[in-house]
């Protein structure tokens, strides 16, 4: 009886432990997943030893794996590898489109061996060029799918994060062409429904709103970062003025459903654009490694909407960059 109970206890423990430890999962080039335990990766032979779920030992060459699984196998060596190898792992990440991973490997290699600076600088040139192509291709894909918001996100990323890349000029031109059409139309319905109020009581507020849009557009399309920052800072101030006008009109006029609809509609639009402008401004500052300034700008956006997911993500990325280094910028 005692033996049986001991056996059962041991069995329970083993089963619970196994259930708690997650299995490794790798994807093959043909799209199939293999689940089991990755035992070893040999950097010289590029062979991964993998114990499948049925207990059989599989020897998988890195070329048989999907790019991401192959990268994870190669990445197994990054912690202990010599700096030159870390650069090669970074190149692997870069060449399969994992740009943030690549930049991190380059930074780590440089921390271990600063004499690799020239080599890393050369690899970073390729990284920035390929990342710019990636941004442009995402933007063009979004345009094809009729998603102007997504297109604008990638064009803005290109302009603010990779301002020295030749494709940044094309991105700025595309933003210039598309921004007005996309954003000017956002208040079309409000203009149509409340033409009277907009031409009288809220006239100044509307002028401020339009001026803010113009400044954001100029900020995003300026090919000079000082001018871009100046326009975006100006846009924020215009947004503040527009919000003050909305508050003023709200206090002056008799409350009504129509008025509430108009004021709330514009308040939301003003804030949405102010947040977008602030995030672009923060992005410029991050690229220039002015992290505290970047955080200030994001915090202004969060003061307008503390739950805005884009602003929260931007803040987390700035905090990450300020501790690890942005690592994408061109050395001057």
């Amino acid at each position, binding site marked *: 009886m005692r033996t049986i109970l001991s056996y059962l206890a041991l069995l329970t423990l083993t089963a*619970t432990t196994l259930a708690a430890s997650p299995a490794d999962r790798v994807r093959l080039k043909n799209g199939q997943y293999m689940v089991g335990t*990755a035992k070893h990766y040999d950097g010289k032979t590029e062979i991964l030893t993998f114990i499948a779920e049925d207990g059989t030992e599989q020897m998988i060459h890195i070329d048989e794996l999907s790019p991401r699984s192959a990268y*994870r196998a190669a990445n197994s060596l990054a912690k202990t590898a010599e700096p030159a190898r870390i650069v090669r792992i970074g190149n692997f990440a870069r060449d399969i489109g994992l740009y943030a991973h690549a930049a991190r490997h380059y930074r780590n290699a440089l921390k271990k061996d600063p004499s690799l600076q020239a080599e890393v600088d050369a690899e970073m040139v390729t990284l920035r060029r390929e990342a710019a192509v990636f941004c442009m291709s995402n933007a063009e894909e979004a345009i094809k799918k009729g998603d102007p918001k997504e297109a604008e996100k990638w064009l803005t990323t290109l302009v603010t994060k990779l301002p020295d890349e030749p494709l940044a000029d094309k991105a700025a031109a595309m933003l210039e062409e598309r921004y007005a059409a996309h954003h000017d139309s956002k208040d079309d319905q409000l203009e149509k429904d409340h033409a009277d109020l907009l031409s009288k009581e809220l006239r100044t507020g509307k002028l401020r709103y339009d001026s803010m849009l113009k400044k954001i557009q100029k900020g995003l399309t300026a090919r000079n970062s000082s001018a871009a920052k100046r326009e975006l800072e100006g846009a924020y101030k215009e947004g503040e003025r527009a919000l003050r006008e909305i508050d003023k009109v709200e206090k002056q006029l008799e409350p009504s459903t129509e008025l509430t609809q108009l004021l709330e509609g514009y308040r939301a639009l003003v804030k949405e654009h102010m947040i977008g402008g602030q995030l672009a401004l923060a992005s410029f500052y991050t690229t220039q490694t002015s992290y505290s300034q970047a955080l200030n700008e994001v915090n202004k956006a969060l003061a307008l909407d503390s739950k805005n997911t884009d602003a929260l*993500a931007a803040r987390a990325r700035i905090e990450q960059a300020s501790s690890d280094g942005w690592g994408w910028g061109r050395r001057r």
Partner: protein
Amino acid sequence: MKMIQILLATLLSVAALASCRADDAKDAKDTHEFACTCGEPDADFFGCLHPICADGKTNPDNPECACGPLIEEEE
């Protein structure tokens, strides 16, 4: 007496393992702000903000996650 000890040890072990899972659940709650975006263009460009990924590990719940090594080699 011995049997009771074994049973007690088993229960304690299971409870300890269960408490690890409770920590996972707490982590998951903390991660609520940032979902794992690995496999999406944003994560490829900016990196993923999910705490497991930000910690340099692989998120087992996302098959597209490329964060973290496949094998943890000791230094």
